[in-house]
């Protein structure tokens, strides 16, 4: 419908249109595109800048009036976090369960993704859908039963409890992403390797894994991301020993009022690991976000 209208219109504007199309399709010039992108990035960065700005101020300066940049830069808030064990252990705890979860999710998802991408089997479509529905299960539903379950098996307040609980949504996601990447590898490669006398495990590690390395990277990135940002389950399943940083942050509310500077500094530090990880996978991000399915 819209196609026919557009074609009709392009007939009437047959002289002006090619230039318009050329301009739209080529090269950087200050056009609407640059404006939209700049405004959008500005919108994204302003709240983060504000957090950074606050983290470098003293509480006196924060509460005494609005300043667009710190008048006196202070690193006290950061020093406090890095020297106080109850603070920095929060980061270590969070990173521990995130890393365990990422490794577990990838290790479990690899063979399953291979099976889904290469074979049909009894109930495969239903199984795949069931796996995906777990990605859609609201963590709020599972918070309390998880607490009971992990208390019962004695894993409560260990990084393993959080890592296993996060597998609920990360394993299906990893299977989904890896399956997308694996389906892009032609099956002839498997057959040729078998004829050449490769055993299956050797083929998988020596030949297949390097071919889907970027897929593994992307899947690991996503597992890291969703485990790092989740708080509800992480907080429910830990109490003292393995409290995640996100839960530690609530300590800044005290009888003496909010410690804004410290809260902001802790917030800035939670952004750092994510930013580092993005930098490493930046070339695969676009494809990864399409879950290998473009």
């Amino acid at each position, binding site marked *: 419908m819209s196609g026919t209208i557009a074609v009709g219109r392009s007939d009437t504007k047959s002289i002006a249109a090619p230039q318009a199309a050329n301009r739209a399709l080529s090269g950087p010039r200050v056009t609407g595109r640059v404006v939209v992108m700049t405004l959008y990035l500005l*919108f994204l960065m302003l709240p*983060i800048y*504000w957090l950074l700005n606050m983290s470098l101020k003293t509480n006196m300066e924060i509460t005494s009036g609005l300043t667009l940049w710190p008048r006196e830069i202070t690193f006290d808030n950061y020093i406090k976090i890095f020297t106080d064990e109850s603070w920095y252990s929060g980061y270590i705890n969070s990173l521990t369960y995130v890393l365990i979860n990422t490794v577990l999710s990838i290790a479990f998802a690899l063979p399953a993704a291979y099976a889904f991408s290469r074979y049909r089997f009894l109930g495969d479509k239903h199984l795949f859908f069931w796996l995906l*529905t777990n990605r859609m299960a609201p963590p709020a539903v599972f918070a309390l039963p998880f607490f009971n379950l992990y208390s019962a098996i004695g894993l409560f307040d260990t990084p393993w409890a959080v890592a296993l609980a996060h597998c609920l949504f990360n394993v299906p996601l990893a299977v989904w992403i890896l399956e997308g990447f694996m389906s892009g590898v032609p099956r002839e490669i498997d057959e040729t390797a078998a004829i050449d006398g490769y055993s299956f495990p050797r083929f998988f590690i020596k030949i297949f894994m390097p071919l889907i390395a970027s897929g593994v990277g992307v899947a690991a990135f996503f597992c890291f991301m969703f485990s790092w940002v989740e708080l509800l389950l992480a907080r429910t399943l830990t109490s003292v020993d393995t409290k995640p940083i*996100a839960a530690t942050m609530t300590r800044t509310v005290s009888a003496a009022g909010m410690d804004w500077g410290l809260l902001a500094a802790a917030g800035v530090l939670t952004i750092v690991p994510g930013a580092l990880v993005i930098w490493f996978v930046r070339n695969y991000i676009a494809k990864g976000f399409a879950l290998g399915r473009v």
Partner: protein
Amino acid sequence: MTKPLNNRAWFFVLPVFAIVAFSAILPLMTVVNYSVQDTFGNNQFFWNGIGWFQELLDPSSQLGEQFLSSLMRTLLFSAIILLIEVPLGIAVALSMPREGWTVALCLVLMAIPLLIPWNVVGTIWQVFARGDIGLLGWVVNRLGIDYNYTGDPIDAWVTIIVMDVWHWTSLVALLCYAGLKSIPDAYYQAARIDGASRWAVFSTIQLPKMRRVLLIAVLLRFMDSFMIYTEPFVLTGGGPGNATTFLSIDLVKLALGQFDLGKAAAMSLVYNLIILAICWVFYTVMTNVDAERERIEA
């Protein structure tokens, strides 16, 4: 090319099945178990049959009214989020630079909000939107608009929506960008030769090619906005009053706050079933689109 049938592939899937079932089916059974019982504390439980479900689905009861109003709020929220984020995400994806170092820079900057822990997202906006020490709240108040997200329900809604747009639009944009990148240059050259307008290029080349990823984007954004908990909880705590109490916030209040396990469990199940039903529709549409594409390509 069809895949060979091989039921031994189940051995490869078994570990995933086991680990997900452990985290999914056991807790689900606990929820079902709670949902048919009542408790007065002290670990004493009484059989209640389908009582909670009846109460929940009957809008004239107190629980049913509460459930219906949070459900409506959640649906409204998801609808607004999709209406804003999908067009905006497409616009941003179309505005991405074509090549050069700016591409990587834009990608990294855009992805940053996605990797911030959700409670920190709430904290960032809690501070940013405050009238006294936050830039946004201060500027809006200076413009002469009376703005206070802790007191006024509409302000609270606007703040939560802006926060979610800030947080998640990049996901839609990155997905669309991936779809755009997969369009061969030959398509654009053909369009140029035909003298197609910018709009024609968009509606006949770019949009159809993005359909697949757009479906994924809509699916993910719908699910996540429907399940949203941490960010509004940190920002407004469900207030003022009940203005921003979404289903998940209501649920956690019931289960962990008042320890009303039976009610909370029944609510969880209904909540889960709604998500499951909508998810199934999306999934069916998606697989049909795939099948259609394969038929065209074959």
